[in-house]
């Protein structure tokens, strides 16, 4: 199995969200970056498990600046990916990123291309579907279980109001979410060998983004909490009905 895993860089889950330049840019000051959790915990780990089970190789790909090598790529290699590709460009928008990944993957004959369910910063849930369309492949989104038997995969995915078990043949694109695998912590050996694994840097294709971000805003602050006597929860019911009007 030849497996490709798309990995992205996001602010740490506890990062303070603030903006600069008249609210037109995310303020990275003091922010620690991590590999996007669903990419790391589910997509990458499941790909490695499949490789361990069936043989083959796991390549990780990231569209991003050089910093990303230390922030996300080395970790992915330490967890168990075999090699890495970095497309040397700032990720302008989803279409830009997907176009870069698809262009790289086009002639490489991957059996499976993994993405995470969505990034925790821009919450697009877009890249997987775009890559699939660009490569004219099936796309199985929001998958929480994946088993391979030869070239046939059995996948459980989320659908409206339920789950569905489906069968699909390779090659295809899959977006991974919770349930697909358990997080792996890189061990010392993994961290040591990561440095000697191949990392290829590829220049970007000229692609025009479809969207740009003009402005950011923080949600309005909530008013001070109104406390209710635990002996009189009927007070809460009354407030929810009369004041908040939600019931």
């Amino acid at each position, binding site marked *: 199995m030849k497996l490709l895993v798309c990995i992205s860089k996001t602010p740490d*889950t506890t990062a303070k*969200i603030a903006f600069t330049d008249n609210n037109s840019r995310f303020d990275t000051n003091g922010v620690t970056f991590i590999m996007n959790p669903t990419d790391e*915990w589910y997509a990458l780990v499941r790909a490695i498990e499949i490789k361990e089970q069936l043989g083959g190789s796991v390549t990780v790909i990231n569209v991003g600046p050089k910093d990303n090598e230390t922030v996300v790529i080395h970790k992915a290699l330490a967890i168990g990916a075999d090699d890495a590709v970095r497309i040397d460009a700032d990720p302008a*928008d*989803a*279409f830009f990123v*997907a176009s870069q990944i698809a262009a790289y993957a086009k002639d490489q004959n991957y059996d499976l291309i993994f993405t995470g369910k969505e990034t*925790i*910063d*821009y*919450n697009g*849930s*877009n*890249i*997987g*579907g*775009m890559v*699939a*369309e660009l490569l004219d492949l*099936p*796309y199985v*989104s*929001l998958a929480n279980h994946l088993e391979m038997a030869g070239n046939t995969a059995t996948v459980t*995915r*989320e*659908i*409206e*109001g*339920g*789950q*569905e*078990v*489906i*069968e699909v*043949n390779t090659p*295809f694109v899959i977006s991974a979410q*919770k349930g697909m695998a358990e997080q792996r912590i890189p061990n010392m050996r993994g961290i040591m060998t990561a440095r000697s694994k191949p990392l290829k840097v590829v220049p970007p294709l000229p692609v025009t983004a*479809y*969207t*740009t*971000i*003009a*402005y*950011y*805003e*923080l*949600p309005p602050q*909530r008013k001070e*909490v*109104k406390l*209710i*006597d*635990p*002996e009189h929860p009927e007070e*809460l*019911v009354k407030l929810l*009905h009369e004041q*908040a009007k*939600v*019931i």
Partner: protein
Amino acid sequence: MSVLIYVNHINGNIKKSTFETACYAHRVAQLAGAAEVVALSLGTVSETDLAALGNCGVNRVLSDTNPVFNRFDSGVHTKALAAAAKAVNASVVVLSHNSSGKAIAPRLSVRLQAGLVSAATELPQVNGNVFTVRKSVFSGKAFADYSIITPVKIISLNPNSYPVTRGNGTAAVESFNSGVSTADVKIKVLETKSLSDTIPLPEAELVVSAGRGMKGPENWGMIEELASVLGAATACSRPVADVHWRPHHEHVGQTGITIRPNLYIAIGISGAIQHLAGVSNSKVIVVINKDAEAPFFKAADYGIIGDAFEVIPKLTQALKEFKSQNA
């Protein structure tokens, strides 16, 4: 020029999210000066139900009842939507940012060379040929205004973000052939496990959620009872799903799902930043926690400091009384 929407249905029952997208699309058409709102329905839905989309301002419904659509393959649904978009000269396509929208919208974006804003929370600002659309980012911790600069635009609307107001229009239902065949289907459905007896969490208007403070899965009976009296969906914090006290799909937060119900009741949840990220855009938040210092109280509208095991039965009782008086 028109605005096109995608009809979401489960076994022929049109989802509430479709009415949200219909009402939203109606306003978008007005803002963008589009002549009509057209809906595409794929699979089997009754004509009466489709015509009722007119209540939300849909002018026409294109209905392709080819049975291939009764199974969900994002590639096939995308092809059909693209065919409809061409047929009605759509300048905007609106979908719901739910599980099928997340699979179709990005594909359609590539196919139509149309910029996509997903998880939109508000109407676009229309400025000539550029749309600026607000969406939720940083898992609910902020909003960003995205400008779409392509001639055709795609917006996927976050569930529960746009109110449904129904008038009494009727949409004309026309049969449509989107040119899709069984040869296009690449996905074979083996089994559908429907949770349809419960309300899907992302769409629920009322949510009762509980955390590690509940001590163990055996204590969830009172949470479920409270939810059922309210007609609410249930959710949980991440550690609760991690130890399998509750199913994965109930996990809300930065690494679970993001929701914005009208009412979120958090019981025995401390209010960690990663949890808040998934729920902080709820309209009203109620926190029940025995620790007055729990950080969640800072993000709450109403709070009860007390032991859940004592408070919940009383609250459920009070709600039952309220319901019987207001029935």
